[in-house]
Each structure stands twice: as C-alpha cells, then as structure tokens.
C-alpha cells in the first residue's frame, strides 16, 4: 500500500471513531443570551454539578466540579454585557472565567434539574431597571466601580431608605420548639433554645436599624407545626422568610455554616404535565378528576414557589458571605434542598444552618451569647445587602 493510501485509511478510521469516543463524555453546553438589562450565562449538562463562585473586578469565576470529564460545547459570545468566556481545567474541576465589559456588575444565579442547568445572570450596576430597555445598545459610559460587599457598622444603615418600596414585613423562624427540641449537643445544648436566642437578637437588630416589621413564628418555647409557620408568614404578608437552625450529624467532625434555599427539581416535569392537563381538558372542571385537580393545584403552587427561587438564592448567598467573614465558621456554601418549611412560604425564603450542635467545639460556640450575637449580625448584614439590591427595583 502506498503511504498516501495508508494516510487516507488512517484519516477515515479516525474520522469514524473519534466522534464516537467523544460522545462517551457528557456534554456541557454553554451559551450567553442578552435580556433587557442583564445577560444570562447558561450551563447545561445531563448530570448535576457542584459549583462555586469567585469574584474579582470585571471577572466572575465559576468553579464547576464534575464526577467525570466533560466535553464543553460553546458558541461565540455576542453580548452587550459579557466580553468573553474562558475555560480552564484542573483535574475534574472546570473553571469558567466570565469577563464582563464593565467592572461594576452584580450577579445572580439559580439552577434547574433534568437536565441540570445553572443560570448566571450578570447585571451591570449602571443598569438599574428604572427606565426599562429604553437604553441604547452601546456600552454604558464609565459606570461606577463595583464595591465589594461593604462591611460597615449597622448604625450607618439608618441612612438607607429600607422598606421604601419592597420589604415591609420580615418573618424570622426560630427552628423547632416545645416537645420538638431539634438537634442536641453532648453538653445538653438544645437546638430550639439556640435558634430562639439568635432569632430574638436578629429581630432586635433589624428593628433597631431598618424601617421594617419583624414577626417571629414563635417567641417562646412552644410547639409549632411547619405548616403553621408558613401560614403565619403568609397571613402577615411576609416579604422575606428566614428560618434559623443549628445542624446535627452522625459524624462528630461535621462543622461549619450553610444556607439553604428550596430546590424544586420537579419543576420541569411538572411544567410539562401542567401543559398536558391544560391542553387536554376541554371542559376543565368536568374532565379533570379529583386527583388530577389536586395535582394541578400542587403544580401551580410549585410554580409560584419557583418564582421566588432566584431571589431566595440571592439572599442565601448574601447571608453565607457574611457568615464566612463575620462568624469564622467553615464555609459549607449555599445549598438547595426540599425543606418542608420553605415549601409552605409564599415569598423568598432561606434556612440558615448556623453551626453543628453535634460537634462539641461548635456546640460550645452556639451556646455562647457572643457567638449568637455575631451570627445575628451576619444574617442582618446579608439581609441588608439583599434589601439594597432589590430596593432599587
């Protein structure tokens, strides 16, 4: 065989087999879309990914951990706000560097499941959506420089106009209570006592510094069902719901703080099912049997909930950031899980796991009023940053 023919054969064989090899890897699809006042970077894979954010000037780094290696499928970036996307790889950690055209921007994110999608919304700080979409397309002239989360004395908060438009009532939920004492430590510290102490401190702090009403789901050691906590929040027309908990684990070493918000991994499937029910029921009330009608109610409720997910994630992130800098506990990050109490609430809602009562060292901290003060302070500051962001709307 002549060398030329051999090369042709090789090319053919590789041509046939290389796509097959590449197809074995899960694909991570990346795209950028512009909306009226923000750009959305969307990552999509068939498997769930864990991720973390790192912010530096005009860049946002997204560290994505994958169980397997991934094939990244991008498209050219054409956006008013996002300048470039760059990928780097360290083992099974993929680092996406999002470079914005402006240094001053805020970001929000949320996730969807089946398939897993991570949506990152980049909003330039100049683009306060007061004059919606009326702005010309060229890059905004020299926007104010981004200021990293400012840690300042709560006294300064009085100058803010909080509650001016958005937040009127905040509900704080001290976890557990009454017969249900929650997690307990080796030295006898009870979760229900710690959560109440922190909630009372947080209430005092918010009421002293912000023009908002604070309602506690319980202000003493009483039993209260999760449904009642949600109902109380909804009846008070809460704009935000913050549940305070202390964690417990089978392993003694577990430590650190984390903030949860709701995961609605049923959302995609339920949306399809809802569409099916709507399309196939000519006379809705006659054709849908009771079970389906119940399902429909549930789905509508879930969809209402999912409207708050983005804001809940934002609040969770602000609180987590402050817990890390202020409280000095290990950073376990923000997480999503189907917490019952969060499903009952009709507003953005988070659940703060302050530290572990099952860890003797952290139990001592949780029982210490000074530590409780700093947790309350951290949650308060996270709340403040959240209100600053959304009071502009």
């Amino acid at each position: 065989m002549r060398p030329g023919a051999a090369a042709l054969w090789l090319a053919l064989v590789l041509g046939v087999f290389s796509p097959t090899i590449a197809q074995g890897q899960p694909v991570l699809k990346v795209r950028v879309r512009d909306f009226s006042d923000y750009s959305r970077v969307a990552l999509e894979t068939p498997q769930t990914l864990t991720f973390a954010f790192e912010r530096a000037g005009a860049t946002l780094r997204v560290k994505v951990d994958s169980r397997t290696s991934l094939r990244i499928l991008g498209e050219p970036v054409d956006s008013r706000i996002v300048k470039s996307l760059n990928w780097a790889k360290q083992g099974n950690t993929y680092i996406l560097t999002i470079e914005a055209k402006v240094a001053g921007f805020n970001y929000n994110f949320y996730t969807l499941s089946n398939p897993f999608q991570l949506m990152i919304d980049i909003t330039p700080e100049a683009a306060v959506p007061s004059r919606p979409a009326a702005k010309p397309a060229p890059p905004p002239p020299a926007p104010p420089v981004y200021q990293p989360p400012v840690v300042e004395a709560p006294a300064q908060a009085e100058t803010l106009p909080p509650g001016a438009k958005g937040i009127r009532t905040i509900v704080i939920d001290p976890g557990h209570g009454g017969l249900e004492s929650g997690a307990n430590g080796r030295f006898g510290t009870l979760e229900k006592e710690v959560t109440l102490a922190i909630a009372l401190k947080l209430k005092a702090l918010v009421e002293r510094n912000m023009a908002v009403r604070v309602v506690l789901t319980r202000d003493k050691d009483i039993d209260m069902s999760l449904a009642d906590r949600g109902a109380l929040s909804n009846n008070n027309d809460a704009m935000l719901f913050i549940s305070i908990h202390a964690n417990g684990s089978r392993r003694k070493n577990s430590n650190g703080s984390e903030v949860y918000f709701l995961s609605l991994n049923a959302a995609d499937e339920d949306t399809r099912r809802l569409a099916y029910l709507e399309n196939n029921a000519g006379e809705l009330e006659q054709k849908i049997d009771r079970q389906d009608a119940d399902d429909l109610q549930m789905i509508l409720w879930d969809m209402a909930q999912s409207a708050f997910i983005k804001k809940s994630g934002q609040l969770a992130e602000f609180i987590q950031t402050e817990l890390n800098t202020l409280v000095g506990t290990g950073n376990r990050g923000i997480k999503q899980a189907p917490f019952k109490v969060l499903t009952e609430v009709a507003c953005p809602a988070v659940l703060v796991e302050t530290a572990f009562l099952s860890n003797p060292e952290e139990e001592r901290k949780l029982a210490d009023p000074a530590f409780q003060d700093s947790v309350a302070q951290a949650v308060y500051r996270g709340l403040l940053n959240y209100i600053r962001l959304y009071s502009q709307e």
Partner: protein
Amino acid sequence: MKQPLERTQVIALAALFIVITVLAVAFFLGGREESVMPSSSTLKEMAPPPPAAADLQKKKVVLFFASENDSLLHPEEREIEAGPTPAQEAGRVLEELIRGSRVGYISTLPPETKVRQVFFTREGIAYVDFSRELSANQLSGSEAEIATVFAVVNSLTYNYKDVKRVFILIDGIEKDTLDGHISLDKPLFPNYSLVAQQP
C-alpha cells in the same frame, strides 16, 4: 321387633351410601379425564421454574452510606438475592441499607427500622413504607436527615432505572418530615450531588 327393622334400615343406608360414593367417584374421575386433563406439552409450559434455579439468582446493587470523613454519601456494592419482582427485590435493598456498611461507612437509617412494604407505580414512583423507628429514632439535624432521606431515595433510583421518584411513608401514612426538615409530602427525586464519587 324393633331390632331387625333397624338392622335392615342400617344395611339399606349403608348400601345407598356405597352406591352414591361409587357414582360420585366415577362422575368426578370421568369428568376430569374428559375435560380438565391437559396435554403433556401444556403441562410443561405451565410448570413453574425449578425453585433451585431461582435461589441461585443474584444481583449486584449499590447502596449509599454516610462517612466519617465528609458530609457526602458513599456508594458500596453488594450482592443480593434477585427478584421475584423488582419491588420485592427493592425491599431487600432497603433491608441491606438498614443492616449497614461492611466497609466502615455509617448507616443513615436506625437499625431497628423495618421495611413494611415497597411498591412501584407505572408512573415511576416507588412507594416505600417504613416502620415508625425511621422517624422516631432519627438523629436530629439537617445533615443527618438529608443523609437518611437521600440514602433511601438514591439507593432505589440508582438500582432501578424505572424508578424516577421515591415516596417515603411511615407506618403506612404520609408524614410531613422525618424530623422537621426534608419534605416527605411529595415523592422525591434523587440527589446525586450528595454522592462522593460514581461507584
């Protein structure tokens, strides 16, 4: 006077009884021969598989346990008796989960827990009914509760591809939560982001 009469009666009754019995036997035997007796080929088809073969059927499954080293769930492979139905087999998967790890991981279900019933629906939901110990003896705290709930859910969805969601019941009834955290009032999707590495 009475005795001979009675003797005659007894003999008559006995004779009648024998006749009836013989007729009945003849009737039933004859009937069976006529209509019910299956042909030899049908017999083979209807015969259940020999029990010895079914006993030998094993299946490798993956169970999820907690670990002393991190807050994740760790897969552990194990061989269990297969079948006869997927739901019955899944019951054994859960029993193994309760029995605990053989390689030093931490079981996330109280050892006193019993699996009462498991059934799969055509819509891909596995209903799993546990005894009350799962909730009553549950260690308090989110991390502990999340580990328990998702060890159950992941262990079922991972081993049974038809199972998409898992509905956990306690003593046959729906419960809000095991211990105040994770919602059990709807079937749960698995959460593989809690898993340390692919088995």
